């Protein structure tokens, strides 16, 4: 792994985690039948604190991959043609909107109409950030990254990490319907991760010499890491299932939800970290240069 890759792993994962929190939070806000009446004001402002902290740490980490961070203010100078410029610009908009929403949750008591509007704005900005972030890697010179699997992977990571955190916050005070919905999202996303993987591997093996070289990196050089990633994702789905059954069997005693929720969160993070490290490791250039 190149020297500058670790900060990128931290940056992309934390920003996706932050957007995932806002996305799932936004869905709960917009679709009230998934939650009880007083659920949002009580806990969700703390969720926004976590989301903001993740985004801020992620952005701070992104500076670590620069050789000359003091000139980083120049990074939005090429919005016309550089996807990296666009990524930085959209991340800044998202961060501004998220921080405003977080501050507002503490200053003005919920519910207010502008909360909804600002949440929707932050949600849209977050979805755009993930898309633009994916396009940064859609380079013809890096064929393994240059496919639909990159945005799919980024969005799945976003939803998985976000819903895993929200389930943690729901342990003691969430409604039965919201806990159930979150457990189902975790199961669905982690299963989808595992379902997409064989399609991606098949595509890598068939597309061209560079993608075949990328496949070789994964299956020969990084086989142990790859298998650990699959196991972690499988365990995430299993813990989601465990959580779902815990909710069903004991609606009041939420302590039964504690272990599967914590485990799902830990395994989800282990899986996405491994997945992202492998993503950077297997991005072989065309011609192997």
């Amino acid at each position: 792994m190149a020297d500058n890759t670790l900060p990128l792993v931290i940056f992309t994962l934390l920003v996706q985690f932050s957007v995932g929190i806002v996305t799932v939070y936004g869905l709960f806000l917009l679709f009230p039948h998934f939650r009880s009446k007083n659920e949002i004001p009580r806990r969700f402002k703390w969720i926004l604190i976590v989301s903001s902290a993740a985004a801020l740490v992620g952005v701070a980490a992104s500076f670590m991959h620069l050789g000359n961070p003091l000139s980083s203010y120049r990074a939005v100078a090429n919005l016309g043609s550089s996807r990296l410029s666009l990524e930085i610009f959209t991340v800044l908009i998202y961060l501004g909107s998220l921080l405003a929403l977080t501050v507002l949750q503490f200053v003005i008591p919920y519910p207010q109409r502008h909360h909804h509007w600002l949440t929707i704005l932050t949600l849209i900005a977050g979805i755009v950030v993930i898309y633009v972030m994916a396009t940064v890697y859609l380079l013809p010179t890096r064929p393994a990254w240059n496919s639909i699997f990159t945005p799919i992977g980024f969005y799945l990571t976003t939803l998985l990490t976000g819903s895993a955190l929200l389930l943690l916050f729901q342990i003691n005070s969430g409604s039965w319907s919201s806990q159930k919905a979150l457990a189902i999202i975790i199961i669905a996303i982690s299963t989808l991760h595992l379902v997409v993987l064989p399609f991606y591997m098949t595509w890598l093996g068939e597309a061209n010499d560079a993608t075949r070289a990328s496949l070789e990196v994964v299956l020969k050089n990084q086989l142990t890491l790859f298998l650990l990633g699959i196991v972690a994702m499988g365990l995430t789905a299993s813990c989601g299932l465990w959580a779902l059954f815990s909710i069903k069997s004991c609606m009041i005693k939420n302590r039964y939800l504690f272990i599967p929720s914590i485990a799902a969160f830990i395994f989800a993070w282990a899986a996405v970290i491994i997945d992202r490290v492998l993503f950077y490791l297997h991005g072989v250039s065309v011609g192997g240069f």
Partner: protein
Amino acid sequence: MAKFGFYFDASACSGCKTCQIACQDKNDLPVGIRFRRIYEICGATWRQDDQNTWVPEIAAYNISVACNHCEDAPCVKACPTQAMYKDDNGIVAVDPKKCIGCRYCEWACPYGAPQYNKKLGIMQKCDLCRDYLADGKVPVCVSSCPMRALDFGPLDELQKRYGNQTTLYPLPDGDLVGAGWVIKSHPAETKAKELSARIINPEEVKNG
């Protein structure tokens, strides 16, 4: 203004790396930074002939690669700070004052031309020896080549003299980025493709 470029004759290159060393010396580059690199391409297998004897089949040659100052330079497009730019002669260069060392140009370039200087925290690359050009001289890699495998000049003149080939296995398709160079193939190129030949000195040419 005329657009300049390199010509590389793979059939003449012996892989002596004089061009690489001359470039490093002229630009005073530290270890690990090579504006011009020699990729050693090799593929081999065993084949049973009609007398049931196992004989080796080998394809091997060298490719000397610097920046190709592409028409549609992906590094220029990718650079978020506009530090990477094209001048009037089509030379792609880096403005060290603007470069933030994000290394995105490195990902975007199919030839590995932009090189990261860890000490300075910025990207550096071949600028066709602009100072030499101003003095009427050719780039140092061209003048140093003992095999005369490298040539330099206005791209249209090179194309008239040597043709339009811009791709050589396993180099990426030159049309992908409008590579501003001309290549003469090595006779073993077809065999190299059949044998799925690869770069056998990846550690040596790696930036860093």
